[in-house]
C-alpha cells in the first residue's frame, strides 16, 4: 500500500510540475497576472508530493518491504539502519528520486528566499525549474520507477553494495546532487532573464548566493568522495581522474568560473553575455555528468544502470536542455551586450583570464573524458586516456591561474597599471619564493623542483591574500571587512592549503607492496611497521581477517593499526585499510592476500605526508563560499526592495 501511495504521489507531482512549467511561463509572456500568481503555491505543493514519495520509499527500506524491487535489490534485514536510509539513494532509481526531491527543495527555497524578485521574473524562474522537474519525473516514471513491485517477494533482500556501506558514502551523493541540482537555479535565472530581456546587476545579485551554495555543496561532495576513495577503496589514492570523478569536476570548474564572472557582472555590469553562457555550461555539465554516470556508457564503480532506454532518455533530455538554452542564447545574446569599458590591466581583465583558463581546463578534461567514448562510437578502436594525460594538461594550465589569483585580488577595478601593482606584490613575491624553496629543504629535508614550485605557488596565494586583507582593513579594522571579502580570503587560502596537500603528497609519498611474515618489520619514512599477524574476524553481515600492525618511530610506539579484509555475505570482498591520520602525515596499511601457510600476508604500506591538507583545503574553500553567501548585501537589499514594494503596494 505504502509504495503505491509513493508512486501515486510521484504522478501527482508530475501533474503539478506540468502546471508549474506551463501556466506561469505563458502568463509571464502574455501578462496574465493570475497565471503568474500560481507559480509559487504550485511549486511548494510539488515539493510536498515529491517529499511524500521519498518518505514512502524510505519507509519501505526501513520496513524491509522486499515486495518493492528496488528495496529487494539494495537492502536486507541485517543491514544497519544508517545504511537502510542511505540505501534509498544508493542506486539508480532512488538516486533519481533524491535528485528530483533536491530540485523541488531548491525550487521552494527560491520561492522563500527570493522575496525581492519581481513576480514575473519569479514566474519565469519557477517554470524553467518546473520544466527540469518534468524531465526528471518523466524519466523516473517511464524508465526507472523506484516503486516497481516484485512478485512474489523474496524472503530476504540482496545487499547494498558493500563499498557504499560507509558513513562517508551516506553523505557523498546527497552533497553532490545538491551541487549538481543547485546549478539549475542560476541556469533558470539566466534563461528567465534572457526571456525577459533584462540582464542587469539585480539578476546577477539574485543568482550569486544560489551559485555559491551549489558550489559549496559540490566542493564538499567532491572532497568527501575523494576522502572516501582514499580510505575505502584501499588504493591510497585521493583522485584518479576516473570519468565519474571528472563528471563532477567539470561542473565544479565551470561553476567556479561562473562564481567569479557573476561577481564582475554584479559589481561592474560587465561580462553579461559570458556569465549567461557560463550558467548554461555549469548546468549542462551537471546533466552531462548525470548522463555519463547513469547511462552505463562508462566502465566504473558508479555505472550501475546499463539500460539503453535510460541512456537514450537522458541523451534526449540533455540535447533538449543544452540545445534549447543555446538557441535562446543565440537569439538573445546580441541584446545583452555590456557597454562597460575596462583596461587591459584591471581586475576585470584578471577575472576574465581566470574564466578563460578555467573554461579551457574544463574543456581539456571534457576532451579526455569523452575522447574514448567518441572513438568507440566511431568504431576506431577502444582506448583509455590515463591519469598522466590529465596531469600533463591540467597542472601546467592551472599553475598560471594560481599566479594570477594573487595579482587579480590586488588589482583595482576598471583601470590599474603594472607600475601601481608592482610595489604591492613585491614583498609577497620575494617571501613566497624564499619560503617556497626553503620549505622542501628545511621541513621535508629533501629538495625537489616540483615541490618547490608548488610551495612557491601556495605561499604566493597565502601572502597576497594576507596583503589584500591588510590593505582593505586599513582605517576600518579587520572587523570592518565585508563577509564577501572574508569569503574571497578563505576561498583563496583554502586553495593554498589544498595546493600544499597535493604537492607534498605527490612528491614525498612512499608506497610499497610487500610480503610480511609474522613478526617481520619494514622501515618507511622513518617509521617501523611491524606485522603481528592476522586473526579471523566476524561482523554483522561479513566475515574476514583482521591484521595487526604496530608502528614505531625511534623505538616509541606511534600507533597500532588493524587493516581488515572482509568477505560480505553477498560474496563481495572488501579491503578496509588501517590508517593513522596526522596533520603532517598519514600512515596507511592495507591487507592483500595470505601468502603460504606460515601466516605471511602481502601488505600495502603507505607514508603520505600532508595528505589531510587536501581535504582541509577543500573545507576552508567551502567555508569561504558560505561566508560570501552570508554577506549582508544580499539580505539588506532583499529587505529594502521588499519594503519598496510594500510602499508601492500601499500607494496603489
Amino acid at each position: 500500500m505504502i509504495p503505491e501511495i509513493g508512486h501515486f504521489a510521484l504522478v501527482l507531482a508530475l501533474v503539478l510540475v506540468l502546471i508549474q512549467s506551463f501556466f506561469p511561463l505563458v502568463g509571464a509572456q502574455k501578462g496574465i497576472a493570475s497565471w503568474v500568481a500560481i507559480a509559487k503555491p504550485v511549486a511548494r505543493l510539488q515539493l510536498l508530493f515529491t517529499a511524500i514519495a521519498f518518505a514512502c520509499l524510505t519507509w519501505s527500506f526501513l520496513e524491509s518491504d522486499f515486495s518493492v524491487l528496488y528495496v529487494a535489490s539494495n537492502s536486507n534485514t541485517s543491514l544497519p539502519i544508517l545504511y537502510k536510509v542511505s540505501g534509498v539513494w544508493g542506486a539508480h532509481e532512488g538516486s533519481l528520486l533524491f535528485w528530483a526531491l533536491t530540485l523541488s527543495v531548491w525550487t521552494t527555497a527560491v520561492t522563500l528566499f527570493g522575496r525581492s524578485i519581481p513576480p514575473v521574473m519569479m514566474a519565469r524562474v519557477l517554470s524553467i525549474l518546473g520544466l527540469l522537474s518534468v524531465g526528471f519525473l518523466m524519466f523516473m516514471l517511464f524508465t526507472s520507477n523506484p516503486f516497481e513491485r516484485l512478485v512474489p517477494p523474496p524472503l530476504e533482500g540482496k545487499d547494498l553494495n558493500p563499498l557504499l556501506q560507509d558513513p562517508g558514502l551516506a553523505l557523498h551523493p546527497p552533497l553532490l546532487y545538491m551541487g549538481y541540482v543547485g546549478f539549475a537555479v542560476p541556469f533558470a535565472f539566466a534563461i528567465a532573464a534572457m526571456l525577459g530581456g533584462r540582464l542587469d546587476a539585480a539578476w546577477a545579485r539574485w543568482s550569486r548566493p544560489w551559485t555559491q551554495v551549489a558550489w559549496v555543496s559540490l566542493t564538499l561532495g567532491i572532497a568527501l568522495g575523494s576522502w572516501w576513495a582514499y580510505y575505502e577503496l584501499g588504493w591510497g589514492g585521493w583522485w584518479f581522474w576516473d570519468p565519474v570523478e571528472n563528471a563532477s569536476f567539470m561542473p565544479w570548474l565551470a561553476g567556479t568560473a561562473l562564481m567569479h564572472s557573476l561577481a564582475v557582472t554584479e559589481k561592474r555590469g560587465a561580462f553579461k553575455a559570458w556569465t549567461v553562457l557560463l550558467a548554461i555550461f555549469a548546468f549542462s555539465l551537471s546533466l552531462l555528468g548525470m548522463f555519463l554516470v547513469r547511462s552505463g556508457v562508462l566502465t566504473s564503480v558508479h555505472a550501475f544502470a546499463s539500460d539503453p532506454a535510460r541512456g537514450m532518455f537522458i541523451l534526449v533530455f540533455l540535447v533538449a536542455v543544452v540545445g534549447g538554452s543555446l538557441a535562446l542564447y543565440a537569439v538573445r545574446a546580441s541584446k545583452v551586450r555590456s557597454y562597460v569599458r575596462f583596461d587591459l590591466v584591471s581586475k576585470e581583465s584578471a577575472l576574465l583570464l581566470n574564466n578563460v583558463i578555467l573554461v579551457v581546463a574544463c574543456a581539456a578534461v571534457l576532451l579526455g573524458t569523452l575522447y574514448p567514448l567518441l572513438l568507440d562510437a566511431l568504431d576506431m578502436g577502444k582506448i583509455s586516456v590515463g591519469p598522466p594525460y590529465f596531469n600533463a594538461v591540467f597542472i601546467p594550465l592551472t599553475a598560471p591561474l594560481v599566479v594570477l589569483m594573487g595579482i587579480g585580488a590586488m588589482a583595482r577595478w576598471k583601470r590599474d597599471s603594472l607600475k601601481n601593482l608592482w610595489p604591492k606584490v613585491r614583498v609577497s613575491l620575494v617571501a613566497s619564493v624564499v619560503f617556497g624553496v626553503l620549505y622542501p629543504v628545511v621541513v621535508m629535508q629533501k629538495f625537489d623542483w616540483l615541490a618547490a614550485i608548488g610551495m612557491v605557488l601556495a605561499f604566493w596565494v597565502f601572502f597576497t591574500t594576507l596583503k589584500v586583507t591588510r590593505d582593505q582593513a586599513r582605517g576600518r579594522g579587520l572587523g570592518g571587512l565585508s563577509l564577501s571579502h572574508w569569503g574571497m580570503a578563505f576561498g583563496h587560502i583554502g586553495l593554498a592549503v589544498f595546493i600544499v596537500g597535493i604537492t607534498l603528497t605527490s612528491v614525498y609519498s612512499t608506497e610499497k607492496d610487500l610480503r610480511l611474515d609474522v613478526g617481520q618489520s619494514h622501515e618507511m619514512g622513518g617509521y617501523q611497521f611491524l606485522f603481528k599477524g592476522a586473526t579471523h574476524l566476524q561482523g554483522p553481515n561479513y566475515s574476514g581477517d583482521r591484521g595487526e600492525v604496530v608502528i614505531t618511530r625511534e623505538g616509541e610506539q606511534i600507533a597500532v593499526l588493524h587493516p581488515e579484509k572482509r568477505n560480505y555475505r553477498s560474496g563481495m570482498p572488501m579491503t578496509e585499510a588501517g590508517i593513522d591520520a596526522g596533520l603532517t602525515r598519514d600512515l596507511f596499511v592495507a591487507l592483500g592476500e595470505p601468502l603460504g601457510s606460515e601466516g605471511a600476508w602481502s601488505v600495502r604500506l603507505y607514508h603520505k605526508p600532508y595528505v589531510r591538507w587536501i581535504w582541509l583545503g577543500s573545507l576552508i574553500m567551502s567555508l569561504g563560499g558560505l561566508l560570501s553567501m552570508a554577506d549582508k548585501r544580499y539580505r539588506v537589499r532583499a529587505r529594502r526592495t521588499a519594503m519598496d514594494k510594500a510602499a508601492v503596494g500601499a500607494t496603489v
Partner: protein
Amino acid sequence: MKARHKRLGFLLVGLVVLGAASWLVFNALGNNLSYFFSPTEVAENKVPADHVFRLGGLVQPGSVERGEELTVRFEVTDNAHTVKVAYTGILPDLFKEGQGVIAQGRMGPDGVFVADEVLAKHDENYMSPEVADALEKGHQKGIADMAKGNKPL
C-alpha cells in the same frame, strides 16, 4: 592605450592560452593513450611491441598461481585464445578466477604480458563493455574456426 591596441592585447592573451592548451592536449594525448586488445588480437600479433596497452578478458579458471612472493601469474582468455600474465603487487578485491579483468602493461620478450596495473570489475553483476565485446568476438571466432575445421583452443 587605444581601443584597438587593447583589443589586440585581449586577443593575443586569448590566443596564447588556447595555443598553450592545444599543445598540451595533443602532446599529452599522443603519449598517454592506451589501446584495448583481446587475447585473440594478441595471438594474431596485432598488438604494439613497445607500447603500453590494455589486455582484457576472463581470468582462466585454475590458472592463478600465487607463490611465496608477491608475483602472481594467471592467464587471460576470451575463450578462443589465452595470454599469460605476470603481475607483482596486490590484486584488486574483486579479482577472481572466471571473472572479467583488464590488465595494463606491455608484452615481455618471452610472450608473457607484464602488467603494472590490474583492474577487476567493481561489482558482482557488472562486466566492462570492452571485456564483454572481446568475449563476444572470441566466441564468434571460435565458432568460425570450428566451421573451418580448425580445432578450437
